[in-house]
């Protein structure tokens, strides 16, 4: 009985901290409509700062608590709102999610820069672990009492704020109709900033409280993800109700503690289960809770994508293959292998283009589907041993098919979810897979078969061999991956231009309208999820075999999130956005860090500067992600638009191509190094539209919109341009006349 009470108290304490974190999340979501994935990262930053002040610089505990919770917490929230969140009005769910994910990653990089992750940092409980009281054998520490009291105070405080004060009532109105608040004489920005400051304070408080409860060791990744567990609690209240959020948090805390306490010790997976329990509960709660009905009105967002024609896609695909071939001639073998790895990531990113870009469904864990395929290929698709071991094409095919089925199975319960809820469900799946399957390294016996899903924590995946095509050679792998990427990309563009693609686009724009036109949304979602999972699976197997071996960490949720973020930065509606996102997340980071580490090694006096620059570059990558709020259609979109203006300025285009050819020949003959070639090429590509505007202003200039068609024939292109500027759906070629 005493044991039970002890564990119950432990569970309640854990639940109390979850509740504090989750209520902050609910607060910001309800006032701004933004689900803050960076909530945990904010908690993490605040906790590290608290550690630095108290243990690093020896400030008194109460003073650092005032500084961190009273000053830095609110300031961080207010700054986030003023600099970033304010600009996220009228953007699609995916943009909002990606921006907060970018903040999460940026804060992680920042903390790893300031606080080296390999140093051990321990945080003690308030008043020390020894300060405790005892009731009939049950020991409660002062720190735990503080946690419980803080949670209770916050529950009451929020209740009073939201129902008994005008500013709280106005906060609740903010998300419904900020314009109406203005008409009533309130400033919605100030209200939102206040709520972000409050939410951030709650996050920081939760971080400071939970670290000693969870053992006391500070670890950036774990702390960031630990508060993500609070998502599950927030979901109990459907992101709206604070009391239900508190109840959910308690259930979560108790369940996690009881699993740890009462599961038999010989169930080796119980520890993994405990870690992933919040995610399982999140998944279940998402599925079980009643969902909003389909809303009738289409939400007009700022994202714009235009679908290229298949002919254009084929041309671009051929150009890509030729370009990669020419580039490969410049590179040494290691670079080629790295490049090949990046290309396999680009294939995984294509799964996002079709799912998110075309169909508007979200998947935050694309790499997890890659992991599923890799495990299947590892267990069933390898022939030969040692150096002669090869992946068979049948094995890869089986892996892709199984992944498609798994994708369908994950999607099946998630089919009724939309937007943010779907994103959270996929994330829950990803974290669950990381914790349960990819850590399943010990052997167990089931139905007489002894196996482990992820033996030794590393899978050695040999290269693929299809007839005479052997991918052991890096160059062959790179070219095969590129050709595969091009083929899938062309296929996707063709799909987008088909009736099926238009149905997907319709579902994305307005599920209600699409359902009313007789579309079977469930079938559409199911199909596109399976397709997307299959593509991710193929990319995952190739990625594993390109690297030679994979560990569970290769498929970590953070890696998935960074891939999603960079793909959105590139432009999630375009296959070229997938190319950008895949290459950047697959090898971009490696190259950036590698370059600066090489520089640091080469010039010892400058070592610290170059190392700092490397860290800065990582943080800057996340900054690009935050910039998505300003430019939600992606970088590729901007580049296309600037080149579209050059269409009539042929001399400029030819000049640019010639300059590029000269650069290439110079690089090939060794006159300039590869590094210079890359930098100059990037400059040329970026600057050409600018030169074009300077050199041939008449050809580049566009007619002001209101004068379109006045002194020139009214062509279909002009009509399309008007549609585009007015934010109407892109014209569908011949079909349009039938509609009009």
């Amino acid at each position, binding site marked *: 009985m005493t044991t039970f009470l002890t564990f119950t108290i432990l569970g309640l304490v854990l639940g109390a901290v979850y509740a504090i974190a989750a209520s902050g999340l609910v607060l910001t979501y309800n006032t701004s409509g933004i689900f803050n994935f960076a909530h945990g990262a904010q908690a993490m930053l605040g906790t590290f700062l608290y550690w630095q002040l108290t243990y690093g610089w020896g400030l008194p505990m109460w003073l650092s608590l005032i500084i961190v919770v009273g000053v830095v917490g609110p300031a961080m929230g207010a700054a986030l709102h003023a600099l970033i969140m304010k600009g996220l009005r009228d953007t699609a769910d995916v943009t909002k999610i990606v921006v907060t994910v970018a903040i999460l990653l940026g804060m992680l990089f920042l903390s790893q820069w300031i606080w080296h992750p390999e140093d051990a940092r321990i945080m003690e409980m308030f008043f020390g672990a020894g300060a405790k009281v005892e009731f009939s054998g049950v020991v409660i520490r002062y720190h735990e009492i503080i946690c419980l009291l803080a949670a209770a105070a916050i529950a009451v405080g929020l209740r009073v704020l939201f129902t008994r004060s005008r500013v709280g009532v106005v906060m*609740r109105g903010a998300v419904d109709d900020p314009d*109406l608040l*203005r*008409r*009533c004489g309130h400033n919605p920005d100030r209200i939102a900033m206040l709520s972000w400051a409050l939410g951030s304070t709650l996050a920081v408080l939760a971080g400071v409280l939970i670290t000693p409860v969870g053992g006391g060791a500070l670890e950036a990744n774990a702390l960031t993800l630990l508060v993500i567990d609070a998502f599950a609690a927030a979901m109990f209240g459907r992101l709206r109700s604070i009391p239900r959020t508190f109840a959910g948090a308690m259930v979560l805390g108790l369940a996690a503690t009881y699993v740890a306490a009462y599961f038999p010790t010989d169930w080796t997976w119980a520890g993994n289960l405990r870690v992933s329990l919040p995610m399982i509960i999140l998944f279940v709660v998402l599925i079980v809770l009643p969902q909003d009905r389909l809303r009738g009105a289409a939400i007009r967002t700022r994202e714009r994508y235009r679908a290229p024609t298949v002919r254009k896609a084929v041309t671009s695909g051929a150009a890509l293959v030729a370009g990669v071939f020419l580039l490969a001639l410049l590179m040494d073998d290691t670079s080629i292998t790295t490049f090949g790895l990046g290309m396999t990531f680009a294939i995984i990113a294509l799964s996002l283009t079709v799912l998110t870009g075309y169909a508007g469904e979200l998947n935050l864990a694309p790499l997890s589907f890659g992991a599923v395929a890799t495990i299947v290929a590892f267990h069933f698709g390898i022939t030969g041993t040692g150096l002669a071991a090869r992946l068979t094409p049948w094995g890869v095919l089986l892996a892709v098919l199984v992944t498609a089925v798994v994708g369908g199975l994950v999607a099946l319960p998630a089919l009724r979810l939309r937007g943010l809820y779907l994103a959270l469900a996929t994330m829950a799946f990803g974290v669950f897979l990381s914790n349960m399957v990819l850590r399943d390294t010990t052997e167990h016996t089931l139905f007489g078969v002894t196996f482990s899903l992820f033996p030794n924590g590393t899978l050695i995946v040999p290269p693929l061999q299809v007839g005479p095509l052997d991918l052991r050679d890096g160059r062959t792998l790179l070219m095969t991956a590129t050709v595969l990427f091009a083929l899938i990309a062309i296929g996707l563009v063709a799909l987008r231009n088909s009736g099926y693609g238009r149905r997907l686009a319709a579902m994305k724009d307005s599920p209600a309208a699409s359902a009313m036109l007789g579309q079977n949304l469930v079938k559409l979602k199911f199909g596109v999820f399976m397709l997307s999972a299959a593509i991710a699976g193929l990319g995952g197997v190739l990625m594993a075999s390109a690297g030679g071996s994979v560990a569970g960490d290769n498929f970590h949720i953070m890696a998935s999130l960074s891939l999603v973020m960079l793909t959105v930065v590139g432009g999630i509606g375009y296959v070229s956005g997938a190319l950008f996102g895949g290459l950047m997340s697959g090898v971009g980071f490696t190259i950036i860090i590698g370059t600066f580490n090489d520089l640091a090694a080469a010039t010892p006096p400058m070592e610290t500067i170059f190392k700092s620059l490397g860290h800065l570059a990582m943080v800057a990558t996340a900054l690009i992600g935050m910039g998505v709020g300003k430019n939600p259609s992606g970088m590729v979109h901007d580049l296309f638009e600037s080149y579209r203006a050059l269409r009539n300025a042929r001399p400029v285009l030819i000049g640019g191509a010639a300059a590029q050819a000269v650069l290439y020949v110079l690089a090939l003959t060794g006159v300039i190094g590869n590094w210079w070639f890359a930098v100059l090429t990037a400059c040329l590509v970026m600057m050409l539209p600018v030169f074009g505007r300077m050199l041939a202003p008449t050809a580049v200039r566009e007619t002001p919109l209101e004068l379109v068609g006045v002194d020139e024939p009214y062509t279909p292109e002009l009509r399309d341009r008007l549609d585009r*500027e*007015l934010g109407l759906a892109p014209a569908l070629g011949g079909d349009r006349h039938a509609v009009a």
Partner: protein
Amino acid sequence: MRDGTGAGSGAEEPAPLLELSGVRAAYGPIEVLHGVDLRVGPGKVVALLGPNGGGKSTTMKVCAGLLPVTGGELRFAGRRVNGVSAEDAARLGVCSIPEGRGIFPNLTVRENLWVATGTGARLRDVEEAAYSRFPILAERRDQLAGSLSGGQQQMLALSRALGTNPAVLLLDELSMGLAPMIVTQMYDTVAQLVAEGLSVLVAEQFARAVLPIADTAALMLNGRVVSAGAPAEIEDQLSSSYLGG
């Protein structure tokens, strides 16, 4: 002479509370108001009429401070206020009730009235004014506003004008989606407010509802006020302009 809109007729006439002169406004690159002239004198009711897409709602948004002016001048009581924010406009005494339902569906009736006190009124006064005019709201004070009927929601929206003592009331499509009886009741309330000295600019697609209480009517087509004058004169032009004749 009943003149709220036309050119100034004499030195003795007080400055209009709300005046637009040559106002232009745009959504992104597309200009939708091409120079609107309009004036609402103290204690007058100006009806803004015209078919869909004529620019009525955009004009209302400009007056409420929700859409910035790109050309011309917006004046409150003779003072140029181009670029005024909506919250400042509200504090200056411009009470604007938007198209559709100007309420927060997820707040209770009482909380809606509480939010309405953002311009400096006291909750008790607002509640008293609202409940005495619309007793049904008093019965439902703790009910979510979203669960009220359409007419009750519009009563709640209009209550903001009752208790906060504004100088100008902007009403956009008050009659939209309401039963004729409710519409009459609404406009009775508006007429009572006018009798107490409030100035009103009301945009309506269905002219019949508003013309009886209007001092002046203005007809908007394609982003311009094409004619303004006594309600009876404008009513005669309506059918031809609605039907494009």
